[in-house]
């Protein structure tokens, strides 16, 4: 997309909070959390072909760390966020080393099991997590003395963070490491011949994904002000996975589009009554079946057919 397109998008983004209703902005903030955590999952999926069904565990760790550090220990917010990152890295390292030896369905099952085990432990470790009742009263974040206590204010924090995460993933993808990861995914035997340490790469990717999940969780805790184990179950992990699946795992912009879909569509469908969950399931099945490159792929194809400049470029490419 050309620069003019990006500038237009930025202007729209800036203007939105002033034209939308509060709960719509609230939804967009949640989309931001989905984008950050989903970027991690998308990274693993798109670059490594790894299905990670345990991202909610790291999301929860980040959220609980932030909540515990600020509420029980009275420490400042950044300490909580950092604690979350460190704890998540440790867990990802300890668990990642052994399970990343698996692949395909087995790895997916192992990540799912990880998610469930953590969920179980969140319930049990009442003295830290507050069990079923959770930890309320998580303080709002303040940036430069300015408290982020409304959806609009948080919107202006989370979206730059999300875009930053997504852009970092993109630059990682085009770096040497990223190319090595693609080699690993597309031609593992060749990659091995080139002395690319596959297991180390996979571990790095898993660590990065866990950090993204943790940061998203910490920010979530400071936004909602209340952390509870119900927010960190398998369904949440599935939603995080849906972000790159629906949006398009191969492209970072796909993560943003996917996050918007996953955050906004269930809410939009809920006006249709109790059947909304069924419809959401159908929408996602349709996306998997009919839009293999995700919505980004769809948008690209639409752009290719509708925008004359792109049509020309495509024709020239095809005739070459």
């Amino acid at each position: 997309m050309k620069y003019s397109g990006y500038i237009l998008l930025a202007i729209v983004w800036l203007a939105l909070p002033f034209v939308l209703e509060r709960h719509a902005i609230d939804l967009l903030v949640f989309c931001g959390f989905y984008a950050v955590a989903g970027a991690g999952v998308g990274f693993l999926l798109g670059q490594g072909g790894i299905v990670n069904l345990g991202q909610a565990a790291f999301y929860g760790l980040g959220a609980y760390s932030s909540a515990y550090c600020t509420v029980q220990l009275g420490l400042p917010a950044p300490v909580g966020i950092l604690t979350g990152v460190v704890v998540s890295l440790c867990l990802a390292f300890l668990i990642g080393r052994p399970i990343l030896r698996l692949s395909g369905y087995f790895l997916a099952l192992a990540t799912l099991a990880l998610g469930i085990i953590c969920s179980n432990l969140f319930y049990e470790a009442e003295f830290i997590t507050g069990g079923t009742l959770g930890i309320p009263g998580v303080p709002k974040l303040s940036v430069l003395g300015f408290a982020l206590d409304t959806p609009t204010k948080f919107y202006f924090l989370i979206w730059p963070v999300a875009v930053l995460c997504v852009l970092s993933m993109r630059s990682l993808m085009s770096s040497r490491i990223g190319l090595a990861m693609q080699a690993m995914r597309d031609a593992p035997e060749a990659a091995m011949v080139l002395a690319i340490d596959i297991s180390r790469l996979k571990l790095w990717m898993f660590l990065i994904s866990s950090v993204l999940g943790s940061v998203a969780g910490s920010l979530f805790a400071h936004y909602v002000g209340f952390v509870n184990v119900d927010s960190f179950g398998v369904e949440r992990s599935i939603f995080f996975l849906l972000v790159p699946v629906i949006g398009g795992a191969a492209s970072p912009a796909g993560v943003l589009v996917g996050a918007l879909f996953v955050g906004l569509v269930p809410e939009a469908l809920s006006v249709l009554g109790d059947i909304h969950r069924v419809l959401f399931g159908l929408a996602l099945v349709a996306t998997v079946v009919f839009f293999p490159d995700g919505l980004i792929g769809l948008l690209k194809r639409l752009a290719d057919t509708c925008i004359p400049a792109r049509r020309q470029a495509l024709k020239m490419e095809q005739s070459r």
Partner: protein
Amino acid sequence: MPISLTRRTVLGAMLAPAIIRPTLGHAAEPIRLGAILSATGPGAGVGLPQRNGVLLAVKAINEKGGIAGRPIELLVEDDGSNPDAAVTKANNLIFSQKVKAIIGPTLTASTLSVGGVADPEKIAVMPFTGLGLEMEKQRRSVFHMLPTQDLNARALLEFVTKNMKTRKVAVLHDSAYGNIVMTKLKEVNATYNVDFVAAEKWEVGATDVTTQAAKIKATAPDVVLVIGNSATPFRNLRQIRMNAPLMSALGTASYEYVRAMGDAADNIIFAEFLVAEDPLPYQKDFVETFHKEYDTFPKTMEASAWDAVHAVAAGIAKAGPDATPAAISDAIRGPYAGAMAKFDFSAPDLTGLSLSSYVYSKLEKGKFTRVPFTAGQ
């Protein structure tokens, strides 16, 4: 046995509009109320009966002319048993739809998250949960329609010690709500001094708890407290011939659970609030109205929902239909005599129920009968 409620659920779900508009003929401007309930997800088990009660209450009030001549317009939202979605719905109802009060939510987590949004705005919230955390006492606009777990725990032990006159108690509870009650049981035991010979846990959604039941049977208790929203533990206990009486709380005291218990629906005591087969005088009207509308009997959840709407209506009538949400909240914060029980929303626990509010029922061969026992004496 035909499941008439299931048929109604299907029809009801297809026909029940998301917005209850007042019938034509009311020229007066409607009063807008919001409701956040769990109609889908794991909470639907209690959320749907609550919705039935709420819809019936609004209908009944509007049929009698509304509040001060103005009809109620109810916006019902489904949080899908998800506390994060509940926040979004609350933001919508409060800031965009400008409702005067919120009925619900269904689940504790949603109550805590919605309370964080509503209480600073002083909008009255009537959740179907008991006060859970100390800090909730500061949220003076978030009232509670169900007893605290502390009170539930006491209600159970009152019956065990004073009616059954026994002290050898085992507890089988789930890892969520049941866990909270278990903690409270241990706390209030200072007053009752029962001997908890076993305490076993099952995870929410478990398909079988026979092993836990076997551990309990091995300790030979005189009564087993079963706490959690599932019929499975009841079945499993009876299947391994654990024949001591069972006791449970209001969450499982419903006809759906009784059906799911099958043959195990016998010799079970509930500490609840409404036995429709033998209602207390102040409950008769509600039971009749409900029966006429839905062709079945209500239990505690439906009564609680009915009371929530009526308490809000009473508050609005008192403060005036044009009053601010804060004024309405203040007007609600006082005693209210409902069909479920006598509340006092000005109490420190924002519920005002007491041990004597409980109505104990006994399930014998699938039928509820009221037990003539009053706790707290």
